């Protein structure tokens, strides 16, 4: 439990405490419980009576002569009653077996069970905090910059996740997706090291200090160069690359037709697509890029959530993740919405990614308008088709590339491609052309 993060975390500690304590008390046999209660009650009563006796004595010392005798008598009675309680407590204490191995074993087993349940809950909450609170930040710069959540926000988030199996599942999946997203972004060296930050040792010929290269010019020192080269001890510049911020925005269109709630390869398609959304959000947050998520389904079923710079309050993000239409599949409305978005400065040159499990057709008018705006606004579109080939042709006609997935458990290649798209730097690409 402590390894799961209870140290200095009041919420996880509280969950662990409740789990362990409830089970341990249940495991305590009724007789022991009764004796402990009687013992505690007798101790408390004795303490109280002794206290009363002291107060009565104190009052007697300040009372008139007529009152003194009565007060002293009452104090003595209280003390006598206190002693009776003490004797009763001593008898109970004697009968209470403090070294009962069987009882201790039962408590230990019960507490283990309670803690195992608490651990599951704590892990689910930690997943949720990481997924919806902008977490999955690592020291190597991955996963966005989480802000510290208040205790109240954590509680609300935890309560909501524990009530919703869907959110719990997506929070669980999100960790893997975000790690893949961050790893893809990290491995994309679009900004090669160019700035000298320090001097280090190694054998990178391109970055050697001139004084080291000069060794080659002197036959007496040439061998020293080779020795240092072999031992990787030549002085060289340490270079760092700088990643530009403010890359292009991302528009993610999510198919929320009823069929998306079905599993493919043991993974629910909707949960997979929402995890992609959270992975893209981590990229957007890290690169300070605007992200729009268009939920679409039937003819009048369209909802757009905008996340400026990939930021969102946890509960707002949970709203977007939990939202699901469950209707049919019509592409035109989301395409029109995407076109309207790219017309705004905020989504100029956006990368549009659409995740769907199939469509029927796209009208010629919408398709023509799409291509016109696509060229004008320099937007790119990528399609992800889950589970079927049906609609691949139509999706292909509106996309720069289409990826298909037959098994959501075998999704690594597709995820790496999606998250690489999510890291496109159009300005850099144009410079390279």
């Amino acid at each position: 439990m402590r390894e799961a993060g209870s140290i200095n975390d009041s919420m996880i500690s509280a969950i662990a405490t409740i789990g362990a304590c409830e089970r341990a008390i249940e495991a305590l046999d009724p007789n022991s419980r009764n004796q402990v209660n009687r013992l505690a009650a007798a101790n408390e009563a004795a303490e109280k009576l002794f206290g009363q006796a002291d107060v009565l004595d104190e009052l007697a010392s300040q009372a008139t002569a007529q009152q003194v005798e009565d007060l002293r008598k009452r104090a003595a009675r209280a003390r006598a009653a206190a002693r009776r309680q003490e004797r009763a407590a001593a008898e109970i204490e004697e009968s209470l077996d403090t070294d009962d191995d069987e009882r201790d074993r039962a408590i230990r087993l019960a507490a283990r069970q309670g803690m195992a349940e608490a651990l599951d809950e704590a892990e689910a909450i930690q997943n949720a905090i990481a997924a919806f609170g902008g977490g999955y930040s690592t020291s190597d710069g991955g996963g966005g910059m989480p802000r510290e959540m208040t205790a109240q926000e954590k509680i609300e988030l935890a309560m909501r996740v524990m009530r919703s199996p869907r959110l719990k599942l997506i929070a669980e999946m999100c960790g893997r997706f975000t790690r893949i997203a961050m790893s893809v972004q990290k491995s994309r060296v679009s900004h090669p090291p160019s700035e000298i930050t320090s001097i280090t040792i190694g054998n990178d010929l391109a970055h050697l200090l001139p004084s080291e290269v000069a060794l080659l010019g002197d036959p007496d020192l040439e061998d020293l160069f080779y020795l240092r080269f072999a031992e990787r001890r030549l002085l060289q510049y340490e270079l760092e690359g700088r990643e530009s911020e403010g890359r292009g925005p991302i528009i993610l269109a999510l198919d929320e037709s009823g069929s998306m709630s079905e599993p493919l390869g043991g993974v629910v398609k909707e949960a997979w697509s929402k995890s992609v959304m959270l992975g893209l959000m981590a990229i957007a947050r890290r690169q300070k890029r605007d992200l729009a998520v268009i939920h679409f389904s039937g003819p009048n079923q369209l909802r757009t959530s905008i996340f400026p710079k990939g930021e969102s309050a946890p509960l707002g993000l949970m709203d977007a993740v939990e939202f699901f239409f469950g209707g049919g599949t019509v592409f035109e409305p989301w395409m029109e919405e995407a076109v309207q978005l790219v017309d705004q400065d905020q989504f100029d040159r956006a990368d549009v990614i659409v995740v769907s499990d199939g469509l029927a057709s796209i009208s010629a008018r919408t398709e023509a308008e799409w291509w016109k705006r696509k060229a004008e606004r320099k937007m790119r579109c990528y399609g992800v088709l889950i589970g079927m080939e049906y609609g691949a042709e139509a999706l292909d006609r509106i996309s720069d590339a289409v990826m298909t997935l037959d098994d959501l458990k075998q999704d690594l290649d597709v995820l790496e491609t999606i998250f690489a798209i999510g890291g496109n730097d159009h300005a850099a690409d144009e410079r390279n052309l």
Partner: protein
Amino acid sequence: MATMETIENSDIATDAIADGTQALQHDAYDVQEFDRAVETYQRLAVAVSSAGEKLRTAPALIRDLFWSFHKRAPRINENVALKPAFAVNRRILEEIMSAAE
């Protein structure tokens, strides 16, 4: 802004609990952390009160348990003279701490 009066009138714990009810080593900060947790997490407050109805020593046990999870290096206080009724708490705590390892 806190004045002397508000500080004096507040319920902030300024000392450890030394009445023979707590088996775990702790200080005033730990008491404050627990009190804050009870204020913040309703489930913990409910657990304190409902467990207390079943076992009179349970509130003290819950405090000890909370510290055993929350503190970096929790240790049972071998020197404290626990009240007789609370000796069972120490046994329960020992079992749970050994189970948690």
